[in-house]
Structure formats: structure tokens, C-alpha cells
């Protein structure tokens, strides 16, 4: 009697635990798939909300330069232009320094006991909140850079790039701040790529009599190039979407200027400045701008992810 009772209990327990088990496995599956669904629903929701603006302005939105909430006419070109230019400045500064740092941290210039804390310090750069970079840039970087800008304007003002007097905030400050923020990404991923180059390649180069720098330029960098390019693309994605630091120092002007010292705007700073006070069609226009930014970063990130992935699989 007792024996059958406990057998029933065990069976019941077993069936309960197998139900729990199945529910558990299914729910982990659902949530994992949910991650992908989340990405698509972000795209879908932003596109849906942008609908009215897409219907009204079509593709003209991209190339039009008016942004007039009073008459409900919107175009995003100054902001798209500012996004591209500020990111380009950031890349021009950060790519050479980032790759040099990656070499510094992967070659044997220093004992690894010193290298690892240095690598950690540079990664810390990426963890500092962007609003803190913005605050620092307003009070430290701008006063530091304005005299340099003035000198360039006074002496090289005939070049369109330097054709306006710097008045504090401007495109060039935004570019510099963005370069500081993306440098750790380039350095970290390039370092990974360089470290994962097979030691045989290096030994072969050294065995053929190549110097350290011949080895680096003709063997190491080409072999690691797809990873390095992937890292640069990831950094570009970050620079395109970076909001706070850019908003705080770019000057937020709706004008396009050939001069780097002139104030500008990015899509992200447009959103940061206007979203909270917008209503009606303006919200939809802002959603449209967000959709463009989303599309832009998505392309860059997918390309980057594919390149970086290839490195990790090797």
C-alpha cells in the first residue's frame, strides 16, 4: 500500500518536473527569439510613427533644408550632413591613433604586466557617460580649442574649411569629442584582430629578414585588416548615433557651412533638442529623421558585425 503511494508520488513529481522543464525550455526559446523581435519592432514602430511625414514629404525630406514647425515644413539635410561630417572628422582623428594604440598594446613594446592595465584604462574611456564628455567639452575643450581655431582662421581663413571665426561650439569640437569617444572601440577591436593573427606569419616575415615595422606594415596590418575595418565601422556606427556630447558642443544650427568652425547639427542632436516639445506632424517628422538615422547605423553595424565575426571565427 505504502509502496504504491510513494510510487504515485514519485510519478507525479516526475511529471511535474518534466512540465516545469518543458515550460522552462520553451520560455527561454521565446525570450531569445524575442530579442530579434525587439529589434524588428523598434524598426516597425519608428517607421509606423513616421508614416504621416513620409507620406507628406517623401524622399524630398532627405534633401530639403527647411525645418519650420510653424508652417509644418520639414527637411533633414542639414542634420544628415552634420551627422556625416562630424563622424568623418571623428574617424580621421581616431583611426590612425586607434590603430597605433592597438599596435602599442599588441606588440611587445612593453611587458604584459604594463600592457594590460593600459588596455583597461583605454577601455574605461568607452565607459564614461557621454553627457560627462559633453560637460567636460563645454568647460575645458572649447576654451582650449578656440585659440587654435582663431589662429587657423586668421592665417588660413581663405581655405573654405576655416572660413568663419570660431565662436565656441561648432562642428570641429563635436568631431574631436566624438573621436575621443570612438577611439577605444577602434583600439580594442584592432588589438583583438592583431592578436589573432597567426604567429607563424610573423615568424615567417622575421625569418625572411623583415624589420619590426616591415613586418607590421606588410604582414600584420594586412592580415588583420578585415577585423580592423570592422572595428572602424563599429566606431562609425557609434559616432553616427552619439547624441549627448554632440548636442552639447555642436552649436545646433540648421545651416550648412563649409567651415568646420561654424555651428552645425546632427540627426541625434535634432531629436534630443526637439522631441520633448514637439507635437503633431513635427513628431512624425522627427520619427522620420530617427528612421533615417536607424537605417544608416543599421547598415554600418551589419557590415561591421559581418567583418568582425569573420575574424572571431578564424
Amino acid at each position, binding site marked *: 500500500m505504502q509502496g504504491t503511494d510513494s510510487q504515485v508520488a514519485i510519478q507525479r513529481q516526475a511529471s511535474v518536473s518534466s512540465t*516545469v*522543464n518543458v515550460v*522552462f525550455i520553451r*520560455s*527561454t*526559446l521565446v*525570450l*531569445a*527569439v*524575442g*530579442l*530579434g523581435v*525587439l*529589434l524588428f519592432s*523598434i524598426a516597425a514602430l*519608428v517607421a509606423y*510613427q513616421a508614416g504621416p511625414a513620409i507620406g507628406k514629404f517623401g524622399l524630398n525630406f532627405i534633401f530639403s533644408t527647411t525645418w519650420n514647425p510653424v508652417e509644418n515644413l520639414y527637411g533633414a539635410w542639414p542634420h544628415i550632413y552634420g551627422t556625416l561630417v562630424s563622424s568623418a572628422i571623428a574617424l580621421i582623428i581616431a583611426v590612425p*591613433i*586607434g590603430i*597605433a*594604440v592597438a599596435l*602599442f598594446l599588441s606588440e611587445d613594446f612593453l611587458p604584459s604586466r604594463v600592457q594590460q592595465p593600459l588596455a*583597461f*584604462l*583605454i577601455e*574605461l*574611456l568607452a*565607459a*564614461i*557617460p*557621454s553627457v*560627462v564628455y*559633453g*560637460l*567636460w567639452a563645454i*568647460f*575645458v575643450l572649447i576654451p582650449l580649442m578656440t585659440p587654435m581655431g582663431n589662429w587657423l582662421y586668421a592665417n588660413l581663413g581663405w581655405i573654405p574649411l576655416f572660413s568663419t571665426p570660431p565662436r565656441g561650439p561648432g562642428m570641429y569640437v563635436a568631431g574631436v569629442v566624438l573621436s*575621443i569617444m570612438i577611439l*577605444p572601440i577602434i583600439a580594442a577591436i584592432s588589438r583583438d584582430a592583431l592578436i589573432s593573427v597567426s604567429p607563424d606569419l610573423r615568424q615567417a616575415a622575421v625569418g625572411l629578414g623583415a624589420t619590426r*615595422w616591415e613586418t607590421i606594415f606588410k604582414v600584420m596590418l594586412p592580415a588583420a585588416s578585415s577585423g580592423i575595418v570592422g572595428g572602424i565601422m*563599429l566606431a562609425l556606427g557609434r559616432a*553616427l*548615433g552619439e*547624441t*549627448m556630447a554632440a548636442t552639447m558642443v555642436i552649436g545646433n544650427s540648421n545651416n550648412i557651412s563649409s567651415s568646420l568652425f561654424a555651428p552645425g547639427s546632427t540627426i*541625434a542632436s535634432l*531629436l*534630443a533638442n526637439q*522631441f*520633448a516639445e514637439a507635437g503633431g506632424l513635427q513628431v512624425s517628422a*522627427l*520619427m522620420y529623421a*530617427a528612421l533615417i*538615422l536607424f537605417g544608416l*547605423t*543599421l547598415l554600418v*553595424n551589419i557590415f*561591421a*558585425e559581418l567583418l568582425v*565575426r569573420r575574424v572571431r571565427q578564424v
Partner: protein
Amino acid sequence: MTVLTFVAAGIALLPLIAVLSYVLIQGAGRLGPAVFTELPPPPLVKGGGFGNAFIGTLLTVGIASLFSVPFGIMAAVYLSEFARETKIASVIDFLTNVLSGVPSIVIGVFAYGIVVLTTGTYSVLAGGVALAVLMLPTIVRTAAEAMESVSNDIRQASVGLGATDFQTVSRVVLPAAAPSIVTGVMLAVARAAGETAPLIFTALFSQFWINWSQNGLLQPTATLSVLVFNFAIVPYKNQQQLAWSGSLVLVAFVLITSVISRLVVRRKSR
């Protein structure tokens, strides 16, 4: 050439040192118990603090963690335990990485569309939802990595004793991976606490304490990061100083979690 790389490393470290030292010098002056308990001062008035913003940050990040931690860890369990090396895991992995590259301001727009437009008000909840989406990829990635590094032997031992997958994961794998998962969550929390862009039009801002007697989580709130942003661009010295102190609190939080996570990872690899 060798000198050039040394110079580059120096240039790369310069902003870090400059930012840290400025935040410390400018922020430490105002820091004291009062800044955590008092409301932000009006322009030109001495004293005050960012008590409401501090609580707002705790609340938004708390709500975000409530959503993202269980979601992220469960998804990571699937990726690392049930679908490792499969096509679907690799696709989800890919999408998660792409999600982590979505600009935070776009995620703010998403949270605005899904919460603010639905409930009709800027709110703590909307800010929490935005931060949750931002935290998810980090949590998934660190949790999956932590579980993958758990030795297969103890899984086999557990299954050999007749344990179900659920028992194996919840009683063996998760406890073994817990320290790394916790540090991953802390890194995500530190990141989220410093995020500003998605909060300026979801949690918005408020000069006051949260009024619990009405609306609860469905009302705007100040957060530390938005306070830093707002007070950085005003011309008033007293508010600017508070922005520096707020930055110091945020940076200290990020630094401490980064160092702790580094120590945990190092102890594990030994």
C-alpha cells in the same frame, strides 16, 4: 615609428586623465550628504542638491533591471545551454549585436512611441523601458559567455544524477556562472545610469520629488544624467557645480563597477 605609437598611446590616455581629473576637482567641492537629500536649487541660490534626480536614476534603472535582467538571462540560457552552435543561436546572437549598435536616441524614440504615446505622459516607466532595451544586449552577451565558460563536466554530472535541464540550469550552471553574470549586470546598470539621450523625452525632467500619492510611476522624473545635461548648458554657477557633482557620482559608479568586474574576471581565469 616606435616613438609614434608611444605618442599615440599618450594622446589616447590624455582625455581620460583630463576628464577624470576635471570631474574630480570640479565635482568634489559640492559633494556631501546634502546633495543626495535636497532638491535642485533655483538659479543663483546657494545650497540644494540632486536628491530627486538620484532617486529618479535609481527608479528608472531599477525598473529597467526588472525587465531586462530576467529577460536577458533567460534568453542567454537558451543561447548557451539549449542552442549552442546552432543556426538559430547564431542568428539571434547576430541580431543582439546589431541591437547593441542601435543608437540610444533611437531607442528613446521607440520608448516614446510605445509608452509615452500610449499612456499620454512622460514617465518613470517610459524611461525604465528605454533603459531596459539598452541594457539587454550587454546582459545577454555577458550571461551567455559566463554560462559557456562553465565546465561541461558538472553539467554531465548533474544530468547523470537524473536532473532535468531546468534543474541542471537553475541549480548547477547558474550558480556556477553567477559571479560573472552579476558583474555583467552591474556593468549594464552602470551604463544605463549614465545614459541620457533616451531619457530626455521619456522620463523628461522634474524639479520636484516624485509625488507618490498620485500617478506613481506615470509621472516625469529627474535623473542624474539629464540633470547634468540641463545644468551644463545654463549660465548659473550654482547649477553648473551641481552638474559636475552629478558627473562625479556617475563616473565613480562606472569606474567602481568596471574595476570590480575586472577583478572578478581575473580571479576566474586564475
